[in-house]
């Protein structure tokens, strides 16, 4: 890989990301584009079902907006930590990198903890009180599918970032691998921003 990169070093890059150095990044962007379609279909489907329904519960009355606002803050701040981790490893500052990627992982784990608490509270208390369940409510099923699908992505991201943290410390991964992991993590944050807006606030 380094020989190919050296061969390309003297060539002016064309208006394309299709250089060997950036295949990984291009690959991740392509994956994210497809993943965005998956989320897009779920969100649009949710929108159609909700608009077609005459008795959709008001989200701000059923769901805990304050907890979810905090969860949004968690993901945003973990995104900042992720990009600071990238800056750190680009400047070869190992300890700062470890600190910030560690914080990113922690932020993601805390998000999942909050979501687990939120789901438990909804399933055991709030939804039964309102007589809402999976079998009689599209509100419930679309909510859990959407937030669950996203939560799965967060879980994957926490595992992914943990592997990257370990691999960098073993000398097997470098800055560009961290950048690619960062793309995935920012995407997860971005999707949550959209879900938070359309499912909880609107």
């Amino acid at each position, binding site marked *: 890989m380094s020989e190919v*990169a050296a061969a390309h070093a003297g060539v002016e*890059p064309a*208006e*394309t*990301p*299709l250089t060997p*150095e950036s295949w990984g*990044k*291009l690959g991740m*962007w*392509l994956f*994210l*584009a*497809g993943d*965005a*379609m998956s989320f*897009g*279909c779920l*969100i*649009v489907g949710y*929108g*159609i079902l909700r*608009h*077609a329904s005459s008795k959709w519960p008001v989200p*701000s009355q059923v769901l805990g*907006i*304050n907890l979810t*606002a905090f969860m*949004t*803050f968690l993901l*945003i*701040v973990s*995104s*900042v930590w*992720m*990009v*600071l981790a*990238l*800056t750190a490893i*680009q*400047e070869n500052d190992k300890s700062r990198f470890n600190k910030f990627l560690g914080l990113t992982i922690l932020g993601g784990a805390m998000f999942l903890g909050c979501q687990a608490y939120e789901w438990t509270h909804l399933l055991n208390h709030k939804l039964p009180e309102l007589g809402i369940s999976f079998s009689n409510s599209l509100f419930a099923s679309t909510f859990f599918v959407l937030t669950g699908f996203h939560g799965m992505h967060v879980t994957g991201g926490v595992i992914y970032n943990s592997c990257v943290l370990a691999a960098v410390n073993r000398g097997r991964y470098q800055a*560009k691998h961290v*950048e690619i992991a*960062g*793309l995935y993590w*920012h*995407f997860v*944050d*971005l999707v949550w*921003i*959209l879900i938070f*807006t*359309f499912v909880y*606030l*609107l």
Partner: protein
Amino acid sequence: MTEAAHSASAYIRIFWILLVLTIIEVAIVYMGLPKLLLAALLVIFAVWKAALVAMHFMHLKLEKKTLAVIALAPFVLCVFFILMLMPDIFPR
């Protein structure tokens, strides 16, 4: 391959903007605005925040244009998706 990395303070500044936007978003939900206005405002804020994350954290601003096309394609396709389904969303 060297990249023009932003300084930490630039990222922190973006964070504060995102935080303020989020707080405003949550606040306007409780303000009892007409549904259409609330929806329009929330969509604007959401797209704004998403663009900030994409441009600055994902460095889309620094990338070649081709990558921006790839990144933008899903959004364009989803808008197309919604438009195509309008007869089902708003049946006459």
